[in-house]
């Protein structure tokens, strides 16, 4: 029981990070980015390729992988998102789903469909947290992502760039009038979303095995639900929603009878339907 709570919290911050990326893009472009989780898979594969195949230092591979994925986000914004600024939102949504599909296929073509192991950042035996054994990688993931969350909180409330991003999402016209380029902000938002996704993918993938689309299959739906639960336009809400989803899934796996296949997914679906029908603005979101 205690173990499931700790695991749920660790999963929760991962969902929170991915949900933050989703909320960021939603605030910038009013669209659900179906490619968000796949940025993570791409980063994990890039890190694997550089570390395992080309024997580059581990940390360098990770940093380079995140930078390349950031560039990928920038390019996709330029080539696709920008062309669809004035298109119906659902059209853009289908486009992001298309991006996800293209990325998955590229991974399969380049890396093959089989799972490959990505070594953990820190080797070593499990450590005890609150009487529950967790691996160093899980601990690192938790600390890094919580730290990232705090840093983002500071960024969006205290720095000029962060405030400019928020301003763009709230009042594009007025933001233009005070001299902030909304197009550049859009580039920045997509780059940052891709970087967040990439960091998530590398932290999750390390210490386990990675296969094409693993982030999308395992985390995308949960991340969306987390974003909606927290309030789709609320950045702090995304983290809160992430923790809610992480705990729901892991405790669901504990309480639900094993005879129900896909139990955690079923719970996430139930939470999603419930929140959309009862409180569509989410826990921390503003009423539309």
């Amino acid at each position: 029981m205690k173990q499931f709570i700790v695991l749920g919290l660790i999963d929760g911050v991962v969902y929170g990070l991915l949900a933050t990326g989703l909320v960021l893009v939603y605030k910038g472009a009013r669209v659900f980015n179906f490619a968000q989780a796949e940025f993570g898979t791409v980063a994990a594969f890039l890190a694997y390729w550089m570390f395992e195949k080309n024997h580059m230092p581990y940390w360098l591979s990770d940093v380079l992988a995140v930078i390349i994925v950031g560039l990928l986000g920038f390019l996709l914004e330029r080539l696709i998102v920008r062309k669809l600024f004035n298109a119906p939102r659902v059209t853009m949504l289908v486009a992001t789903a298309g991006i996800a599909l293209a990325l998955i296929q590229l991974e399969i073509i380049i890396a093959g469909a089989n799972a490959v192991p990505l070594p953990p950042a820190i080797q070593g035996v499990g450590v005890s947290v609150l009487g529950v054994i967790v691996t160093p990688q899980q601990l690192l993931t938790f600390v890094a992502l919580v730290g990232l969350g705090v840093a983002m909180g500071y960024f969006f409330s205290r720095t000029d760039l962060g405030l400019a991003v928020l301003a763009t999402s709230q009042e594009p016209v007025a933001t233009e009038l005070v001299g902030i380029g909304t197009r550049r902000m859009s580039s920045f938002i997509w780059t940052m979303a891709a970087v967040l996704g990439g960091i998530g993918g590398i932290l999750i993938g390390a210490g386990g095995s990675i296969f094409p689309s693993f982030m999308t299959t395992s985390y995308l739906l949960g991340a969306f639900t987390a974003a909606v639960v927290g309030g789709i336009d609320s950045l702090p809400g995304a983290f809160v929603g992430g923790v809610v989803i992480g705990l729901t899934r892991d405790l669901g796996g504990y309480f639900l009878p094993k005879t129900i296949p896909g139990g955690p997914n079923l719970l996430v679906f139930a939470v999603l339907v419930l929140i959309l029908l009862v409180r569509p603005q989410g826990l921390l979101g503003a009423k539309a």
Partner: protein
Amino acid sequence: MTERAGRRPSSRKAVSADPGAPATGDVDPVDVVAELAGDVAIEPGEGISSESEGFDQISAEDTEPGPSAAGWIARRGLIAIMVLGVIAAPLFYRGDAGQTKLTWMAIGLIYIIFGLSINVLVGYAGQISLGHQAFVGVGAFTSAYIVSVSHASFWVAFVLAGVSGAISAALLGFIALRLRGLFLALITLAYGTVAQFTLFNISSLTGGGAGARAPRPAGFTSNRQFAYLCMAVTAALLYVDWRMVRSKVGRAIFAIRENELSAASFGINITGYKLLAFTVSGVFAGLGGSLFAHQQQLVQASSFDFTFALTLVLMVVVGGLGSRVGVLIGSTFFALFPLVFNAISLYTALIGAIALLLTLTRFHGGIAEQIAPILRWFGGGTLRKHPRRVVRTGGESVSP
């Protein structure tokens, strides 16, 4: 509007697709063949909203005389040759290579049914569906269960597959009544995921990971017979789709896609017609799923994953949303591409995804728009290119 009185006979189609115009009740049998072969489909931006209709109708084409008698014979003749070609083709597929081609044909036809199904929802009603694999899968597993466990006849299973597809779609429809656009997309995605991981993995109903057996129905055991069965069902569903679009139901569904509020103010029952669109889409998907099950002869939950759902969406978007011919071509392309070009099957989804992105960013009408001059020619027009149509961009409508 007075010019309409003197228009060539086939222009009538554009009129009846206009929600404001009165229905044309009579059906010209020649037109039926022409339209089923893809004469005039409802193209995005044509005949739906009154302003784009205006642009189209004042073009020079309308004042020109239609084709001569020989021209009509050539047009109808070509259509007849194509239709007969498809009908006769299975008779000429012999030997081992022929068996493969018959299999491809059946799969292509089944995918056309899937395409029609998702087109009803996404193209006609403007409701996005990223969980369409749920409806298809429900139909497939229902059919497999009834035939192999209950030992009932295939036809019972086939009908019940359609019913179960309709029920699963209507359930989602009830949720969709309260959600729009992005949130609807999200809930359909979750619905599809739950279907794949939970519903299709209930061992007692679906055989769990091993899958459910679905033997070929009696009388249709050979690949050739089964291809004809698929052809018959596809033709019937094409006819249903065509009649629906041309009827009051079709006009109401289009009106809801364009603008729910104004549709409601014209007295259109939004709730009813939205649910109807979901139900019709579910029936098509369920029937297609049943054929799919008995074509494969083994149904597994893993076939109905998110990638499959995305493929369904992108084949209608690339084909041209709302266009029957576009959907036909797009579906066939995506069904057969991995089979025909076996060596590069890895690249299918990549090419599909790139085609999708190109369609969305550059060629909004998809394949249907690219071949529009040819379709116009079959309808009695000329092959000449026309000025680009007005592309509607407002609202949450999916059609680009």
